[in-house]
């Protein structure tokens, strides 16, 4: 330590530094540089092969606005955002309500929701593309067998249904996470409240509508905003399913950005301009988010801008609540029909519904499993076959000889474990400081790390590569670990922050009176009390890194030294002239299983860990 101890105000001001410095360094070091580079690119000319040709002012922006498809894409993006978020929220609330009951059917549903959540999005998207095929797709086979349709619509190829098809997949892949967040909220509604309402003679409909829903209002809002960000930056689902089709029928700004840079216009600077506009839009969303998600009132003095934003949010908030009430009133006549249904849903019928939903969410992975055992010809048989004609178990052996799958597993495991450890190491002190130390700029700190979640990865790739070059870190383990850590840090800090805030401060104070330092309090008192949150963050980080694709492809892809992660490695089955679905799926399933087992182990704690503290 230093010889001269800072005193008074200065000491107070410096107190949080050791706690939050690692987080800030990682976030700024890894994300600010490429983000800045993207801004720079948007103001220079870049030729087709990627060379920078000089300063270009606002030319790139002008060119972007003049694109004939600009309006269409903005409209698509708005539709995508509103429809996917709204439908996801409504479905997730219903599922959360169902899950909060008891019974074996619910346990099945909970497990079923874990699988798509734990699976890499690129794998889930691939299997959906396979399911949605026209003549050889499983969906059409099922619909025809049930007599629901007659014929084989080309769901994702037909320009009239393509966007709808990806929206449905977008919704299905967003529901699991959202349901769990909402379930966490529902679990915290005190039983006494519900009992009291029941004693007062309220129907279960009224209890649901008047007691439970208002009680989880803040959870709903948090879930919604998280969804908004996730959905806005969604690339994989749209790209995998409709990326190879002509035109922009299903593009949002994110997939369009990729096409501008690397497919159609071959113009990275115009794409960078679009990326910058995206981030500006998202920063506006963050400001709202901060106001909404901040569980305790900010200690920072309120600036005019902040208070104005707060006013706007307040108005929107009121509008939403009023709209909700109005919808409730309109729907009231329906309740005599719904109430019995709801009562039944609480009983055995609820189990059946849950079981049915569970089967629905597991179905894609069953299709994946069965397809992994088929021959190439059977994969494309028209119509699709349910069971393999000949069970090719050898596919699972062959896949290891076709690619060095065992090596990919080892590399992915190394990167994921190391990143998870680093994330916990860095995030715990930061979250503790944000929760317990009342320092200036605390809100800004929480906001800053949230900003890291806002950048679409695609916009950062070239900058990251540039940074890796400067550090001579291409293909180095430490670099990919640091990057993965930084990109997953925000979520970890926020969840831990919520968990630590839920621990009564009195416990800290008591321990400090007993002579423990802050660090001792954190280790001996706080950490044991937030086990659920820690496990949640650890598993989340692990899964996030395990499933990451784009960053690893760019800065950590060196087959000569066997440095290839699993998600990148299995892309080898996507050749120019063929896609070996059976091997792709066999490898994907083997990658999903460890993730699912991990999730299943902590599922109970997960629900608590996700939302603890965010809704006192």
């Amino acid at each position, binding site marked *: 330590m230093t010889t001269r101890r800072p005193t008074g105000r200065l000491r107070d001001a410096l107190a949080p530094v050791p706690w939050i410095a690692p987080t800030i360094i990682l976030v700024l070091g890894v994300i600010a540089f490429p983000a800045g580079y993207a801004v720079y690119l948007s103001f220079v000319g870049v030729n087709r092969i990627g060379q920078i*040709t000089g300063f270009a002012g606002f030319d790139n922006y002008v060119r972007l606005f003049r694109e004939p498809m600009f309006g269409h894409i903005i409209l698509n993006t708005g539709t995508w955002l509103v429809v996917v978020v709204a439908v996801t929220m409504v479905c997730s609330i219903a599922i959360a309500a169902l899950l909060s009951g008891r019974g074996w059917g619910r346990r099945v549903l909970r497990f079923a929701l874990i699988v798509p959540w734990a699976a890499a999005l690129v794998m889930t998207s691939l299997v959906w593309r396979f399911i949605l095929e026209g003549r050889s797709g499983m969906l059409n086979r099922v619909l025809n067998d049930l007599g629901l349709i007659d014929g084989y619509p*080309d769901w994702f190829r037909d320009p009239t249904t393509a966007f709808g098809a990806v929206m449905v997949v977008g919704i299905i892949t967003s529901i699991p996470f959202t349901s769990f967040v909402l379930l966490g909220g529902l679990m915290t509604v005190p039983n006494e409240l519900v009992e009291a309402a029941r004693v007062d003679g309220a129907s279960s409909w009224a209890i649901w509508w008047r007691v439970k829903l208002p009680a989880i209002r803040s959870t709903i809002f948090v879930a919604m905003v998280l969804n908004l960000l996730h959905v806005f930056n969604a690339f994989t689902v749209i790209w995998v399913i409709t990326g190879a089709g002509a035109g922009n029928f299903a593009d949002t700004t994110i997939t369009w950005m990729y096409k501008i840079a690397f497919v159609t216009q071959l113009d990275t600077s115009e794409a960078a301009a679009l990326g910058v506009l995206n981030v500006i839009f998202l920063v506006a969303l963050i400001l709202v988010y901060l106001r909404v998600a901040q569980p305790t009132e900010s200690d920072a003095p309120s600036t005019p801008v902040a208070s104005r934003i707060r006013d706007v949010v307040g108005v929107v908030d009121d509008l939403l609540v009023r709209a909700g009430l109005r919808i409730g009133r309109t729907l009231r006549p329906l309740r005599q029909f719904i109430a019995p249904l709801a009562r039944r849903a609480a009983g055995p019928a609820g189990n059946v519904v849950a079981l049915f939903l569970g089967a629905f969410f597991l179905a894609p992975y069953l299709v994946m499993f069965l397809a992994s055992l088929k021959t190439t010809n059977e994969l494309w048989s028209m119509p699709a076959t349910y069971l393999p004609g000949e069970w090719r178990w050898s596919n699972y052996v062959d896949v290891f000889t076709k690619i060095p799958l065992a090596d990919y597993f080892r590399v992915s495991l190394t990167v994921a474990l190391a990143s998870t450890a680093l994330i916990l190491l860095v995030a715990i002190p930061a979250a503790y400081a944000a929760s317990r130390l009342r320092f200036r700029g605390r809100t800004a700190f929480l906001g800053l790390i949230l900003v890291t979640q806002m950048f679409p990865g695609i916009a950062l790739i*070239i900058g990251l590569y540039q940074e890796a070059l400067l550090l001579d870190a*291409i293909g180095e383990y430490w670099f990919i670990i640091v990057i993965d850590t930084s990109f997953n840090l925000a979520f970890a800090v926020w969840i831990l922050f919520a968990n630590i805030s839920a621990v009564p401060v009195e416990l800290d104070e008591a321990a400090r009176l007993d002579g423990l330092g802050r660090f001792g309090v954190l280790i001996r008192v706080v950490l044991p009390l937030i086990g659920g949150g820690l496990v949640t963050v650890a598993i989340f980080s692990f899964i996030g890194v395990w499933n990451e694709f784009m960053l690893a492809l760019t800065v950590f892809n*060196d087959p000569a030294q066997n440095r290839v992660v699993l998600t990148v490695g299995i892309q080898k089955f996507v*050749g120019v002239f063929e896609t070996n679905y059976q091997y792709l799926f066999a490898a994907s399933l083997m990658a999903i299983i460890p993730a699912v087992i991990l999730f299943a182990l902590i599922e109970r704690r997960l629900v608590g860990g996700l939302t603890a503290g965010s809704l006192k």
Partner: protein
Amino acid sequence: MKRTTAALAGIGAATLVLAGCTAEPDTSAGTAEEISIVVAQYSTGTEGYWKEIIADFNKQYPDVKVDLQVLDWGNLNPTVNTLIQTKQYPDILNITNYQDYASAGLLYRADEVLSKDVIDDLLPAFKANGEMDGELYGIPFIASANVMYYNVDLLEQAGVEVPTTFDELLAACDAVKKLPGDVATYALSLGATGGTGTAAAWVFAGGGELYEDGQWTIDSDTNVDTFQYLQDLAAAGCTQPNPGQTNTGDGTWPLFAQGKAAMVYAPLGNVPGFMDPVRDAGLKVEATTHPTNNGAKPSILGIQDNLMAFKKPGNQKLVQELLGRFYAADQYAAIAKTEGLFPLTQSALAVSLADPDLGLTQDDVDLLNSARFYPNQPGWAAANARLKSDIGLAVVPGADVKQVLTAIQDAAVAG
């Protein structure tokens, strides 16, 4: 501008200045310690033969580290772009377009990295296709000769001959449509991966050109007629639904292999992705040229991918050694066999002809030599990107064909 000027400028400015001109790197001095090869993934066999070549190379140069990246086509362009922008040029690159890199002064001329024997051994038609301003930069890597395959039994059942004109194809459609099982007469692939090839094959079949007499002619009246014909063909139910969104590998080829399409665009030879399922299904198929219009001469479409070598200090000799190993007749023929495509030297082609597994005939070789190509023009890279993404829009029911083609034409003219 010379290096000294750049050195005087600030770091930020240097980036901008240097990009506009090209400093000539000293390629003869010393020996590079690392060689990087960036190639496209054709099949799961691609990585294997490159590793063989590298292993053999390392016997002679044990101290040179060779870094091999095999990328699927979807990731190839973004990755290469990133490499170029950050000035991490690969030593050897396998990609279609070489003109942009050559005009930026980044590439070796072929004679600087390839022996005269190999250059003279290259098939003339393909060699010409790799030349810019009379110099060879794009070294012919491998080629496909794209034709029309037909299902012999299906046409027999429908009682029609192989159509040789646009009108005959429409007539054949009437007969094929009557077959049970919802059979597409011609499986048309104009989606964003591989749509360019299908589109070009039809342009030539329709008697049109993409580039003629120093002018881009993508939106010529002839070509508008051709794509209007294809749109009508789709509307009449003679193709599978949504041809504009359908690709080959996961679209028209499985359809054909399942016996649900009578004709399809595919590469001649033994490309595993096309041929294996067809053989497994026991289909009797034959190859021919596409039906033509306006008296066009029947032709096949040659699509050639190129290798190119980047100028970097001390890498010339090493690149030479690697390429020499690649083009050794036996090695090269084996590579082509792995991918089911054609080697592009006389000597390797002779090896392939002698290989009984391939069933290659002199007729195939003659066909190959008569192939037509994409325009070898600087604007083609831009046109190709736009064509790939948008040509499918021309066959959407009711689409304005002229408008779609003009957008592609504009991209070509703008370059």
